[in-house]
């Protein structure tokens, strides 16, 4: 398996495949389906200081080759995650990337400080891009100055490397990427969902109770690839790419554009075994491309 292994800040991964935050819960459900130790890493669901109950239902809606969601950062809160969720995952040989969310800088700092001390949390992912909470993360993700300051604050307290998850709902994602790099981010994860809406055919009202939701799935892949491609050119920290990944070819595409690893979100709902399947398919793809080690293809679009 060493053909697929690589090193990222905080993480030595067996392979670059990891479930994306919010699409894998805290891993428990999927651990009944397959051995989570197969995964490169796990990005757990966003954790906030307090318990969040999230948005009213319906929270999901299907769209052309995609879906909308407005879960609203529902999670049991920092204390429960530390006490129950993270310890459960310790039985697996897999590094955890903890997705950190909040409303104020203090929130992020509090979660980051605490959660980065968990033994299996090897990196943080600052969610400055969730489109589904009213007062919250999203402004951090659209203003480079605020984003940079947040990263600086979190870097001061985190025991592990800090990745920042970027929002695609911006005029210039490169600007934000550079800002978080300047703030000391160890890596970038991208993209979060695009803000979208679906209307009920009869009533004309939004299907999702929250009104808008975040668009994910194959539909957004061209936007995600373009953004990874642009950010790769502009920063020197590694990128974990995501947005519509469903198979090994998509992984090759994201890594070609410049991602060092790839996260799989929506595809877990379509096929809960998709991550191990992709990991199995990858060596064959490398064979076809005549590549020895997966990491050789990182950024090949730019050559």
């Amino acid at each position, binding site marked *: 398996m060493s053909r697929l292994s690589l090193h990222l800040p905080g993480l030595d991964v067996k392979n670059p495949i990891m479930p994306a935050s919010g699409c894998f819960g805290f891993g428990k459900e999927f651990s009944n389906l397959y051995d989570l130790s197969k995964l490169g890493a796990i990005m757990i669901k966003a954790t906030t200081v307090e318990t969040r109950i999230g948005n009213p239902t319906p929270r999901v809606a299907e769209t052309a080759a995609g879906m909308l969601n407005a879960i609203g950062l529902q999670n049991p809160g920092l204390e429960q995650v530390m006490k129950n969720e993270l310890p459960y995952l310790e039985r697996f040989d897999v590094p955890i990337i903890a997705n950190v969310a909040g409303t104020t800088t203090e929130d992020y700092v509090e979660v980051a400080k605490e959660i980065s001390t968990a033994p299996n949390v090897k990196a943080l992912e600052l969610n400055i891009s969730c489109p589904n909470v009213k007062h919250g993360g999203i402004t951090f993700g659209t203003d480079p100055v605020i984003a940079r300051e947040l990263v600086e604050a979190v870097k001061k307290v985190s025991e592990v490397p800090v990745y920042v998850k970027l929002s695609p709902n911006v005029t210039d994602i490169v600007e934000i990427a550079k800002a978080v790099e300047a703030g000391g981010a160890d890596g970038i994860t991208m993209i979060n969902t695009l803000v979208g809406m679906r209307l009920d055919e009869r009533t004309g009202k939004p299907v999702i109770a929250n009104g808008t939701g975040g668009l994910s799935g194959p539909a957004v892949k061209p936007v995600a690839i373009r953004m990874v491609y642009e950010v790769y050119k502009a920063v020197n920290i590694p990128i974990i790419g995501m947005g519509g990944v469903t198979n090994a070819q998509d992984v090759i595409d994201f890594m070609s554009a410049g991602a060092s690893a790839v996260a799989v979100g929506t595809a877990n709902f379509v*096929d809960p075994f998709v991550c191990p399947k992709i990991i199995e398919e990858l060596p064959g793809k490398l064979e076809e491309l005549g590549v020895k080690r997966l990491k050789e293809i990182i950024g090949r679009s730019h050559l």
Partner: protein
Amino acid sequence: MIQQERMIVVRQSEIAHHIFELTLQGQIVQDMNPGQFVHIRVSDSFEPLLRRPISIANINKEANEATVIYRAEGRGTSILSQKQVGDEVDVLGPLGNGFPVDAVREGGTALLVGGGIGVPPLYELSHQLNARGIRTIHVFGFATEQVCFYEDQFTTLGDTHFVTVDGSKGTKGFVTDLLEELKPEFDVFYACGPLPMLRALEGFYPEKQGYLSFEERMGCGIGACFACICQTTDQSDKNYVKVCSDGPVFPKGVVDL
């Protein structure tokens, strides 16, 4: 255990207006229980993308066959309705907890209340209750006669009463109207159907033990995405349940209606 399997279509037919009965063959049938559901991927392409949750209506472990009954209305179910005998269907399941069959003592009576496309899971339930020596009374509401199904099948299992909104079949009105009239004697009730029906039922038999099966829009179907949350009446911190993995069946009083 939850498995993913390409099950084989062994029968499919339209049994009422836009209502299809589909029988699938595969290993996962061995793990199925009444009230559980399967999550069906109707196409191998990205269109439509998400799986469709459909209740298990009948389980035949000897033949490795399970039947589902569904209304083909939207995009996904319409595609499903075009599957031919011999085609493969990607099924994830069985999912959810199912109805507690042993909640009624042997020799007791169960009241099964269903509304429209909520009726199917009650069929396997009735089978298993009857197999345990429990009498079943069936009270089902439909919109019109056109979309009624399985009258004969349920009649062979127990007293069966239909009510339709337009009176085109059985009495006219809602299941609660009919229950008011029938005043059935029973020990435990099981219900599946639209929310207003479930809500009405909860208040109807305050003294009785009852189990309600819920529906909610789903993403994963296995408890990981938090799409299918229902608020509970519980005032503690953990004041929600997931329909897909904690449910779809909850004892009366659990879900905040």
